């Protein structure tokens, strides 16, 4: 089986999820035999060669060009699709990141492969593929079937280990691809500077989600954090509503935290949130929904309405 993984450079490094795509590629290789090729587009990529030469990768294609410094879908699609066509793999694997989400639909369209996004696991049936996807924010799984021996998939970051055992013996091919001109133009990357505390530095985080319900409850959560010498953090909707600054957001599009204690109040447990906190030492969750996926990764779970529980909890802790 010819396997292609598409890697990515993020913030001047090989992205973590790139290694997860390689991990899955390796698993398939072990099961079905074959060859694994890693393709990466960007600028000045040679410096990443050693980091990419990891166990199980048979060859690496670096599509290196000054115009590929910033991700731009049309140029990336044409360059990468060209290489994939030449290999004609049975499967193309990429991470479901901001880049993968944008790029893979375009590549799959270009090469005529069916793309299944946001996969958790994958099986080859001999005639086609069965993928398992996590849906409804983690409440359900679905198995979907593609009746084609060739497939493209994106995988959920956080579902596979990031093994980085370097071998140094992988063949690396550097190419300068032709650049296709799209209608869109990348201008640059920015990191908005925000002044605030650094939530990654705290031993205790009290983290609020949409279930916190009101700003009054938010104040109570802040009080809880203060009693515990911790800080107030949150899930995305709280930032979207403007209740807390982005600096307090935990999750894939914001901060990854690993405190000694993470107390989640009214957070459902979506992958994008969990990926930012699941390695905390002790996770305590309060949610009124006994089926909330956050309980699956918690050490302690309390099924309760925050409106009832939080005032009582503060009273108890002040005793």
């Amino acid at each position, binding site marked *: 089986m010819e396997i292609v993984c598409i890697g990515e450079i993020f913030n001047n490094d090989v992205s973590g999820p790139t290694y997860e795509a390689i991990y899955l590629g390796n698993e398939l290789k072990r099961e079905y035999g074959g060859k694994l090729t890693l393709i990466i587009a960007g600028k000045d990529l040679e410096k990443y060669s050693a980091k990419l030469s990891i166990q199980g990768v048979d060859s690496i294609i670096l599509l290196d060009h000054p115009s590929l410094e910033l991700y731009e879908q049309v140029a990336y699609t044409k360059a990468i699709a060209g290489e994939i066509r030449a290999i004609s793999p049975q499967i193309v694997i990429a991470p479901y990141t*901001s880049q993968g989400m944008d790029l893979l639909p375009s590549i799959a369209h270009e090469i005529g492969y069916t793309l299944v996004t946001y996969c958790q696991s994958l099986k080859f049936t001999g005639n086609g593929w069965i993928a398992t996807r996590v849906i409804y924010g983690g409440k359900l799984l679905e198995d979907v079937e593609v009746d084609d021996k060739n497939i493209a998939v994106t995988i959920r970051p956080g579902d596979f280990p990031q093994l980085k055992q370097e071998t140094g013996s992988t063949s690396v091919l550097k190419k300068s691809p032709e650049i296709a001109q799209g209608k869109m133009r990348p201008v640059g990357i920015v990191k908005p500077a925000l002044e605030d505390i650094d939530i990654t530095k705290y031993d205790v985080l009290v983290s609020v989600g949409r279930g916190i319900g009101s700003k009054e409850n938010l104040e109570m959560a802040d009080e809880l954090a203060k009693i515990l010498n911790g800080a107030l953090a949150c899930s995305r909707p709280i930032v979207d509503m403007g209740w807390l600054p982005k600096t307090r957001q935990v999750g894939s*599009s914001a901060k990854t935290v690993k405190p000694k204690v993470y107390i989640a109040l009214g957070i459902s447990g979506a992958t994008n949130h969990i990926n930012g906190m699941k390695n905390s030492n*002790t996770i305590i969750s309060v949610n009124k929904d006994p089926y909330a996926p956050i309980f699956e990764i918690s050490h302690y779970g309390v099924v309760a309405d925050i409106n009832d529980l939080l005032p009582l909890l503060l009273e*108890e802790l002040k005793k």
Partner: protein
Amino acid sequence: MDIVVLVKATPVLEEAKITEDGKNLDTSELKFFMNETDTYALEEAILKKEKYGGKVTVVTLADSEIENDVNDMIYESYAKGADDGVIIEYSGIYLDPYAKAMIISDFLKTIKFDLVLLGAQSTDTSYSLLGQLIARHLDLPYTTLVSSVELNGNMLKVVRELEEGLQAVYEIPLPSLLTIQSGINTPRYPPFVKIRNARSRPIKRVSIEDIIKDPRSLVKVKRTRLYIPPSKGAANILKGEPEELAAKLAEIIRGVVPR
């Protein structure tokens, strides 16, 4: 600037029930609302209309089984400021993102627009695929996860959200398609009277058979099974009266929080 907003009705789910064939969600007791990121896409369209003029058309592809909730979703969009609403209806078939993209693309060919907006991800199936496929079918430039849009003449300056708080800036000309990330704006809540008044406005209904002869043939990704994830049984789950829970939780917290 004429803007089409693609919206989807998604259910609020606590305990999931699955139909007997083991393939579908039992929706009989569920309430459907506009998908979260789509509410931000609609708000962005209305803000742009208020600034630059033009028309906002809301388009949804929906199962007739949830007709009432879908109608409500369109009426609420009217109350917020949408001008036209279109429901492309189907019944009793399973459609994947490929079939949906083809149907919606063919419909979009029949109307005039400068910009297509939709949410970056739906809370139900989380494919994040529909917009990208439509853009490729219609040969429109697209970008995803957009957290800011500015118009300069015929050119949009958009900001895309990346991981770890980073953002990428792009210039993209009209006509084009953008998938919108939550937090780009603050969606308005229309007063109840406005929603009630909107109920007298017409909704255009199109049957998918009017657009495509055999929609089933477009499906490439078939669902074979839908199920509740096997529990890893991780948490010690506490249930009971709030007073008792508060005392127990306080004890747990005292046990693990460093002093």
